[in-house]
């Protein structure tokens, strides 16, 4: 995935806001990249530009060798938001089935596929529950497997864990790493939580606001197959420190 010199400006009645300015980024296939920055630095906008939901005012986005719009039409992107954003009138299973009804997925295999995915995140017993009957963590698990259902190559995650409590958050982070190590998706993960970015990513891209731009790119040199113990190591703390210093720019 290649983002080059992307600019995004929004016009409101009384001002022009530059959401992204001269943003360039290269992401390898199967790489886990965290976009870290304060609110308003355009990291969510960057996700929207990559997935062709927002058109850049200037610049080029190329996904797996083709323009973003074509990649979107080829269903390359799975989106996960801060809130689960499930359909309240559909059960957990039917929520995961939703994208399969839209992308041309063989009807006969839909159910088995979704049941397997929900099983993977420990929700086998909750297939027929409605969202209001599930906890916050469960709902977000459903939202994550909904974004995996049709096996897209890229996961775009917009602060997916920031509304969860600490314990659930840590649990879901580990589950996400496990999914990623099994399915080898390319992941763009937006967060404003420094240790979350370091814990999850291969590379932390630090952004800054007004205008939104990339100020630093920090490779994370921690061993893969990370477990919670990694957070207590000196190396981890040094990574967090470096990211924090970059944010202060």
């Amino acid at each position: 995935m290649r983002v080059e010199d992307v600019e995004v400006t929004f016009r409101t009645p009384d001002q022009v806001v530059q959401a992204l300015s001269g943003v360039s980024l290269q992401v390898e296939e199967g790489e886990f990249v965290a976009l870290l920055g304060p609110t308003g630095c355009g990291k969510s906008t960057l996700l929207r530009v990559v997935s062709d939901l927002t058109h850049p005012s200037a610049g080029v986005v190329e996904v797996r060798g083709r323009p973003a719009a074509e990649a979107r039409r080829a269903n390359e992107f799975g989106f996960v938001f801060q809130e689960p954003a499930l359909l309240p009138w559909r059960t957990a299973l039917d929520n995961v089935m939703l994208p399969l009804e839209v992308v041309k997925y063989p009807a006969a295999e839909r159910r088995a596929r979704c049941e397997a995915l929900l099983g993977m995140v420990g929700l086998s017993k909750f297939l027929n529950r409605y969202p209001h009957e599930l906890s916050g963590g469960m709902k977000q698990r459903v939202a994550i497997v909904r974004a995996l259902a049709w096996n897209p190559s890229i996961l775009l995650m917009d602060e997916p864990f920031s509304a969860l409590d600490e314990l659930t958050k840590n649990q879901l982070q580990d589950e996400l790493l496990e999914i990623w190590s099994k399915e080898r998706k390319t992941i763009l993960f937006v967060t404003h939580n420094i240790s979350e970015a370091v814990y999850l990513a291969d590379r932390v891209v630090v952004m800054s606001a007004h205008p939104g731009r990339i100020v630093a790119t920090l490779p994370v040199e921690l061993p893969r197959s990370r477990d919670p113990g990694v957070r207590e190591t000196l190396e981890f703390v040094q990574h967090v420190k470096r990211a924090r210093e970059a944010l202060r720019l």
Partner: protein
Amino acid sequence: MSERRAEPRESLLEKLLPPALILAAILGVWEALVRFYDVPPWLLPAPSDIAARFVKATNLLYHTGLTVLEALAGFAASAVIGITLSALIVHSRFLERGVFPYIIVSNAIPIIAIIPLLTIWFGYGIAPKIMIASIITFFPIVTNTTRGLKSADRRILDFMHSINATRREIFFKVQLPSALPYIFAGFKIAASLSLVGAVVAEFYGSDRGLGYLVITSATQLRTDLLFVSIIVLAALGVTLFAVFGYLEKLALRGEAAVER
């Protein structure tokens, strides 16, 4: 799930008994006062007289059926046209700007003023009554449906766009179901209004229907029949409201209804 469990469910009897007792008391006092002061029946008939009239009234079922038919036909026409129009409005900025002012104007026109006009055009049959019932229900249905269609979660819409869903898929899988609570809230208001519309239309130039019954019994000072008509109308209104309330519950399952 944090649903509040009320104390053990009241039995139907416990629920119905207090209002029934109060009703009986009121009727009893009414009956006694009328008998004691010998109030003339054209001024205020006793409850027993009204009940007797209710039993004897010929053609009551026919008049009631006709009014219900007019109200429901108008309601149904409004529902179909209103929901279709709302769907078009949320898909086109031009239509929204162009049509909405007229929808608001349609609500501002006093409905009684249009009845003579519609009667000139369509005669004394049931057609103008259906139209009035339809016009009077149009506004709550369109405004509620439009609001409902716009209430769809923006992130789900983003999600649907990100997987290249068509407008049609987005409408039927996301927007329309999101609008259901609003549509039913509109239906509940419209149901009672449709009855008002049909009855008011029957006041003017009609020889059948509950509205006709109200007008003729009033002009002939048959006050007992007037009471019977009013009670039937009230019962119909409550029934329609209850039916749509029940349909709403069925359609929404665990979701909350929209308060209006």
